[in-house]
């Protein structure tokens, strides 16, 4: 098991909570709401990248949307190892009630 920082935990939980609709803006809104203070986009990118590298979340790309100037959305979702069902993984040790 890899150690997670507090920020990574929060982001990981947010991705889990958003159930497949996790992208930059939505994650930011989610964690801001849950923690009670405003997160910047920059602040969530670093934990997101680290979680991706540690293999707990994976990226997928949405179809390009006109609203985003023809660029695709980057969507994040939990991988098999990142799922709370999996015993012994970090998420399980935290109550969902915190979020």
């Amino acid at each position, binding site marked *: 098991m890899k150690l997670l920082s507090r920020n990574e935990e929060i982001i990981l939980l947010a991705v889990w909570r958003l159930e497949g609709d996790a*992208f*930059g*803006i939505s994650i930011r809104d989610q964690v801001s709401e849950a923690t009670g203070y*405003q997160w*910047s*986009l*920059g*602040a*969530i*990118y*670093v934990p997101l*990248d680290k979680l991706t590298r540690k293999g707990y979340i994976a*990226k997928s*790309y949405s179809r390009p949307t006109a*609203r*985003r*100037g023809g*660029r*695709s*959305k*980057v969507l994040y979702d939990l991988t098999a190892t990142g799922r709370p069902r999996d015993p012994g993984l970090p998420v399980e040790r935290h109550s969902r009630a915190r979020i």
Partner: protein
Amino acid sequence: MIAARIPPGPPGVIRRLIRFFLRHEDAGGREAEFEEIFAEEARAQGFNSARRAYWIQFVLSLPGLIMNFIMWEAAMLKNYLTIAWRNILKNKGISFINVAGLALGIACSLLIFLWVDGEMSTDRAQPKGDRIYRLEEGDWAELQTSYRKVLESFPEIEKYVQFSSWEKPILRVGERLFDSMNLVFADDTIFDIFEFTFIRGNPEQALADPYSLVLTRSEARRLFGSEDPMGQTVTLDNAFPFIVTGVVEDPDDFHLKWRAMGSFKSLPVVKGRPRFLDEKNDNFPTYLLLRPQTNIAVFMDKLAAAINATRGSDGPAQFRLRPFRDIYFARDLVRDNGVKHGNMSLVVLFSAVAVLVLLIACVNFINLVTARSSSRAKEISIRKAAGAVRKNLLVQFLGETSLTVLAALVLALVLVAAFLPSFAKLTGEPLDADWTAGKWIVGILSVFLFTALVSGLGPALYLSSLEPVALMKGRSRRPVRRAPFRTVLTVFQFAVATFLIIGALVVLGQVNYLKTRGLGYDREQILLVPLKGELKETPQVLRARIQEGKTFGETKGVFKRRLLQNPDIRGVTFICQSPGELTNANTWNVRGERRPMIIMQTDPDFMDVMGLKLVDGRNLSWDIRSDMALNYLVNEEAVPFLGLNPLFGETFQANFGESRIVGIVKNFHFQSLHQKIEPMAIVWFDGWTDTAAIKISGTNIAGAIAHVQNVWNEVNPQAPFSYTFMNETIGKLYAAEIRLARIINIFVSLAVFLSCLGLFGLSAYIAVQKTKEIGIRKVLGAKASGIVFLLSKDFSKRVLLANLFAWPMAYFLAEKWLQGFAYRIRLGFGPFLLASGFALLVSLATVSFQSVKAATANPVDAIRHE
């Protein structure tokens, strides 16, 4: 009108900044997320609010963005480093050539940087340097003591200092005798004007009293060893006790070479003339410290007028103020004794050579890297296909080069540390690498950047320009077969090497010529013994002698007679200066015209001892009373110069009254071969002589010297005996040229070695590239010699082409250098052909090392290659 319909976007500056920091595979998507925040806010609150939100978002995100940036850059950097390291390991031989070649080049340029820095910083450290001027008269740097009164009357002069001319009294410490080395006398204002680091004593008091003496650290060690010199006595000429009042650090970067400095106030006593300072005594270098904001031109005119007003019958003279910091590189002075001079053209020459050697090393690097480009081709195309733009590749290759250069730099610093002492000896300068000094670090950094950029930029541009599609289609032979770029570089390299070889040959030829050219007199087996103590007729010695009832020159006579009792002593004559560096001059009045003449004061034995030939007339004779001081011999050059047929008894006014010429001497080189033979005269007047020239037999040199020393100890026990051989003294006239020759030899060897190193790597690589071709040729019946020829002919062509560029450059510069000599070798084809032949031979040998290996290999192995 279309523009109006497009809703205003987020502020451009911020957008670009965000884009810069988003080093990420998803950079586009993330940028869009920033814009979405803008868009949402714009919809809800309007554009101004949106712009503000965008701003805030950027500022808040900044720490995260920077983290992100570093993370991704580090990841890429790690990849670059891995690849670079693998490349180094994969081609150990070539990597070694690269690192070793660059290290040699860098070490060489760093050493030269040290030397150049030493030259350039001479006199620069003096804090008041920009207000100090040396007052000069005509082309002499030395003035009369009688000008002191005038100098004192000028308010513009804050302080001034006069140095005595250089004298060589004997120093006695306790019972031990020493020859003085660079002893000067100076006003106590010297320490207000110039700054020296006092180890003992204090600058205000040190020279305030008569009979005080300041020593440099090394002189103190020479005289006193490990004893404390402060307050000790040093006796000058066995008569004047001087007390050591201070010790300073060796002033290595000061243009006056002084080792001991007595107070100026002692001079009237030492000279035995109480009114000495008011007399017209020549030969005193004079420095002025001017007040700030003095108008130099106006001040100079006033000063010259005031001094000329005191000159009376001597007539007005030309004066000038030379800024203190220009003295070291000044070349236009006839007389400035004791002043150490730099040579600006040598500084330029060496800097150029350093850059050239470094360039040769860089060229090796460039050639080897670009030659191997095809092996990097796949990597480049994959990087390009994966989205690397040219900038990424440039950064990668420059980084790789920097890594190699860094390794070379470390090695170079080790080399510098190892070779610094021997290089310092070679240059004759006390060089010292202060590893922590700012300029040394700046120097190292600039050499590093220069090397990295010069050797990195070319290959980086070349490699990053390769087309991925063409490269992916297979090993492109293009960069190897047609490489005008590399040809140009190799040609350049060999042009430089050949140029340096020619230069070295010319310098060697000229130095050899200087050493062996007939000077018109014998210089072998002649001892020069400086006269000191009793044998030197200083005013005190003369006075003492008169009191003892002896006459003028008596001790010298005894010395000479006793010397000649030994059959190994062939002849003895007393002279005023070494024949190789005669500069004493008088002015003659010939038919009312003033003629400057160089004079050798000596005795009638001079002609015999020196082996000079008489062209006409007779030699001076011991038996003719008027031959002393009044009758002259002149050289052939003087006859047309004086414009009279001297043997007809025409007279002229010289130093001692109405004089005539009794003989004409065949021209001989009484100065260094830099100078043309000038009109000169020989006179019998041994009162002013200060050196004995002793001709000894060639068969028993040691016995002859022992005899001279014994006689000296008998006649003159109060003075230390010392001698030199005249050919050595003459050799020293060309010390600069001999040193230049040695240094140039080293650089030339380096340049040739480096060029060959590069050629070796290049030919090795090409031999590998052509393995298959060679194998097939051999199978089809090619001979080994044919293969060697095939591989060597390209290189030979380049080396020959290089001559085209090297020859004119070398001819031009060598000719210019040789013009500095009045007597010089003629520049023939010899050195040029020799240098080109040598370059060709060495390069062929280098290439054949590889090509023979390739040509004699078993063709079966070759064809199975890959």
